[in-house]
């Protein structure tokens, strides 16, 4: 178990390193370097850039310095806003994005698992068909389309809920719904598929032969095994939700990190784009690491990796 986690940890470090290196060299390969003085007419900005990127030093020194600053959670300045840096944007925007993301995951995971489990237990029944029809639609309709539809219908036509911003729980419903539907559909389908497979296993038959209650059979015996594949896709899904926040925050005018990120893309604020990408990647890879560790915890067979060899 410990070995497994350590291995995962080094993998995480390697991935972050690759991302950082990639951004660094991409940054330098942009046609007409973003560090050119014409682009940065403002002296404050130029000074910030010089300080962060060590532009007067050779590339190797720059690279090492860059890695160091990332290791200390300094993601660089902005070239469009003199007194902003990636860190200051993160400080303002990230908590909101994090909240949106977490609520979305909670909604998606809980409802997806419930939906998928019931669909599998009523295999080929009406609940199954309805749940799966919903899932296919949920996967096919992009979140930005769903978001606009929700605003148009629920907020504008029916006026049931506010159409934008993130100022109260009521405001949170539509963005969360728009963002969570896709992942929820994916989880529901995956849970159903793996549940169906688990239900045919011998140990399920054995559980039934023990005369256990249906609740115990499903929750204790089936669900834990059925959720393994769900845990493995959590990483990919987190990435999807995170990038999803970009468009959702844009459409709902939510002042999160995604909104700043899209802004920086639109006005080609390269250092912010790079810095945010590195931050996001590091965050995602870290979450992936957490998910993997949870997986190791859920599946006792992973413990085979441990070295202290008891048994």
């Amino acid at each position, binding site marked *: 178990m410990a070995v497994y986690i350590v291995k995962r940890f080094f993998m995480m470090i390697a991935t972050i390193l690759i991302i950082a290196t*990639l951004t660094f060299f991409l940054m330098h390969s942009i046609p007409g370097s973003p560090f050119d003085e014409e682009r940065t007419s403002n002296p404050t900005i130029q000074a910030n850039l010089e300080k962060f990127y060590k532009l007067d030093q050779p590339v190797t020194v720059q690279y090492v310095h860059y890695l160091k600053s990332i290791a200390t959670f300094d993601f660089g300045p902005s070239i469009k806003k003199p007194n902003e840096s990636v860190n200051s944007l993160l400080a303002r925007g990230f908590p909101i994005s994090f909240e949106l993301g977490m609520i979305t995951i909670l909604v998606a995971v809980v409802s997806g698992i419930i939906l998928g489990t019931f669909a599998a237990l009523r295999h080929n029944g009406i609940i199954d068909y309805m749940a799966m029809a919903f899932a296919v639609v949920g996967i096919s309709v992009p979140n930005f389309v769903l978001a606009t539809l929700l605003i148009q219908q629920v907020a504008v036509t029916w006026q049931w809920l506010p159409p934008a911003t993130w100022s109260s729980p009521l405001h949170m419903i539509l963005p969360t719904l728009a963002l969570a539907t896709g992942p929820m559909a994916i989880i529901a389908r995956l849970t159903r598929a793996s549940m169906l497979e688990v239900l045919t296993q011998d140990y399920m038959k054995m559980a039934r032969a023990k005369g256990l209650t249906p609740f115990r059979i499903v929750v204790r015996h089936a669900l834990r095994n059925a959720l393994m594949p769900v845990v493995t896709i959590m990483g990919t899904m987190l990435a999807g939700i995170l990038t999803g926040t970009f*468009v959702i925050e844009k459409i709902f005018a939510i002042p999160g990190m995604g909104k700043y990120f899209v802004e920086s893309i639109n006005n080609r604020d390269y250092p912010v784009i790079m810095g945010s990408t590195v931050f996001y*990647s590091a965050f995602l890879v870290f979450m992936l690491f957490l998910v993997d560790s949870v997986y190791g915890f859920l599946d006792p067979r992973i413990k085979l990796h441990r070295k202290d060899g008891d048994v």
Partner: protein
Amino acid sequence: MVQKEERLIVPDEWFRPKGKDSEEAESVVRPSLSYWKDAWHRLRKNKLAISGLIFLIVLTLFAIFGPIFSSHTVTGTDFPNQNKAPSAEHWFGTDEAGRDVFTRTWYGARISLFVGVMAALIDFFIGIIYGGISGYKGGRTDTLMMRIIEILYGLPHLLVVILLMVVMGASLTTIIIALTITGWVGMARIVRGQVLQIKNYEFVTASKSFGAKTPRIIRKNLLPNTMGPIIVQMTLTVPSAIFAEAFLSFLGLGIQTPFASWGVMANDALPVILSGYWWRLFFPAFFISMTMFAFNVLGDGMQDALDPKLRG
């Protein structure tokens, strides 16, 4: 008592050895179909998958021939008929420059389908080479190649795509490059898994013992047997590429050609949707969703058809 009576009913002449020419002995043999025919048979029964397939065929035809039916060109503006609702003149309405949405939708279909299919094809080629070699060679080569994949798999794809698009600038070529740089990894994994599974089949050992060379074994024996899951993966790559393209358009990284992709059209419609110009968003959004839906149900259907053991 009943027993005795029943016994009496059986006539004595039935008690003679049965002729060997009896027909029943080997009559009922179910016709066995080949793998592909069998799969097609099962796929055909899946109405949803088949309607997805039909939708995609029709969509492709419209993407190619659709503009012919229209009297408007893709960039031709029609002042002062900006933002007009669908009518006999403009079937899907017009946009803010008075361009015909019907015509533009089919041009958008060309871009979206092209991006999706190209991404799937390139993924396929890279994946099959990488995964094939990794799985077939095995040993240290495999371990190394898989370690690389594991790390690449951990990269957040869409973020890398955004990064690449920002640096390379948005165009049809760059979007396909960006999507495939990150996309082939999944395909390579699947191919490797398939190869590993089949590698030890007897016929491979057999052809090896006849002195067949590695590339020949891969081409002749391994590939045909790994196609099922790979085709499914390709089918599912297309909608995710189409989604990615639309998503990038929303971030302002859409393809800048004379005519817009569906994603760009939808993004352009956002500011005016509250003004009631619903057709501006509806048509591109509808076709994005329907295309993704069609590819998804087709991919699912093929998965079921190719892997019958999962059927309940």
